[in-house]
């Protein structure tokens, strides 16, 4: 299966498309430190990632349709950019031992609870592995975009972007 062109056909970018845009950290980098992943490969007029960053680690510049450029040296993985991105395109990932961690934006109810087992999904919405909810954060500054932290098996670190929606028990 060719995964070259995906965004405009399947709706989600392929790993190749993301790597070509130079935005994804390598596994080695993820083992070294937590890294911001910005999955934004189209020139749209938008720059809140840049203005939300207190470390000047993300630059868009002018015109504001430039793709964001990450300075991994400056990035402290604080996560302010995750709820700031109107496209919900930013996550922060890391690897520790045989586990990977992801912090991702979440705008669905019900919210997952700490300690809950959830189904982690890839860009196509396919369930790939189980995840454990480490924490959820939804402070006022997030403007109603929660940030969820989950842990899962490190072999899926490049594919996992979110979790499957939960359903309210009736």
């Amino acid at each position, binding site marked *: 299966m060719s995964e070259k062109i995906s965004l405009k056909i399947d709706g*989600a970018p392929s790993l190749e498309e993301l790597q070509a845009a130079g935005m994804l950290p390598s596994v080695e980098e993820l083992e070294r430190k937590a890294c911001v992943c910005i999955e934004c490969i*189209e020139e749209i*007029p938008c720059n809140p990632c840049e203005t939300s960053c207190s470390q000047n680690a993300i630059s868009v510049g002018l015109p504001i349709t430039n793709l964001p450029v990450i300075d991994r040296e400056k990035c402290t993985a604080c996560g302010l950019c995750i709820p700031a991105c*109107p496209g919900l395109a930013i996550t922060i990932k890391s690897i520790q031992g045989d586990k990977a961690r992801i912090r991702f934006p979440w705008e669905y109810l019900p919210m997952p609870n700490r300690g809950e087992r959830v189904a982690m999904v*890839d860009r*196509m919405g396919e369930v790939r592995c189980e995840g454990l909810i480490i924490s959820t954060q939804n402070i006022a500054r997030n*403007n109603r975009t929660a940030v969820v932290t989950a842990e899962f098996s490190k072999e899926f670190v490049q594919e996992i972007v979110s979790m*499957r929606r939960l359903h309210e028990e009736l």
Partner: protein
Amino acid sequence: MKPNSKPAVVIGAGPAGLCAAIELKKAGAPVILMDENAKPGGQLFKQIHKFFGSKEHKAGVRGFDIGNELLAESLQLGIDVRLNTEVVGIEKDQKVWAVENRTRSYVIDADRIIIATGATENALSFEGWTLPGVMTAGCAQTLINVHRVLPGHCVLMVGSGNVGVIVAYQLLQAGAEVAAVIEAAPNLGGYGVHTAKVRRAGVPFFTSTTVIKAEGKESVERAVIANVDSKFIPIAGTEKILDVDTICIAVGLTPSIELASLAGCGMMYVPELGGNMPIHNEYMQTTIETVYIAGDIAGVEEASTAMEEGRLAGIHAAWAMGYMTEQEMQSKTEKTRERLAALRQGIFGLKRLIAKERVIQRGIAQ
């Protein structure tokens, strides 16, 4: 120049009309803002997503919060907002005929008129399209985000432009399932970040695909979709059945030009901007010197561009009425144009930018 005491009448209190009225009032000009709805804000109050752009464009702020900010500003300025008021005619010498609460009719002698009536969603006809459960995406968005009513439990979204994918996402947020987003063109239309968040929620996208039939006894129970060829003709034998109870149509919008047409504004056909629309110059002035347009009536774009166009129209009208110096008008116009230009860059904005340039060149020539 002695300021004119006749008011400017702004028709339509959506993002464009509100911003136009705010600029006029800030300059000290008398202004009346009319809207046929019971509440101002146009479509802003159903936009629950965060807007794109930069800080100056209120990026990261949700649409309804922008609506509330504009309302608070118009309230603070003391703008005369007349709700439940339909403008039913514009006659010679800027006479605006309005009907209030469907009971009282009156005519206002306006100095300048700004028409910000927005756009209307396009329909798509197919077998069974009159069944209950077939609706425009904007209708579904109003139901879930304004009235908090879920139109159905399993939805087919027809059209992958930003409206289609944003409403698909909001339907998921409201608790519905989305069976698929289909697109007749070979490529998806909306922003990739919007399609990606719908895709990772498990919603499949089908390109080169259209809906050919809605089936059901009393209301929609199934949709039949099929692949289309390069001429958008369905290919026999490719039909697929989806068990859905709602079909949302998001196949573009057309500028609502009726009042501009009544006012005698010159029109031109611009397919990239939604079809027939009034010709206008770089100050949003139509071929009738005293009549301006702003927002989706001047070409279908977004709320953020509509707000800037509203400001352009309001600033120029305030100057034309004698409430602003030429220097102030030019400097404010320049700043607004810079913000507007920033929104029309990149692969998505370029087509609109070129089309807008074509309209404005016609507007300047006339």
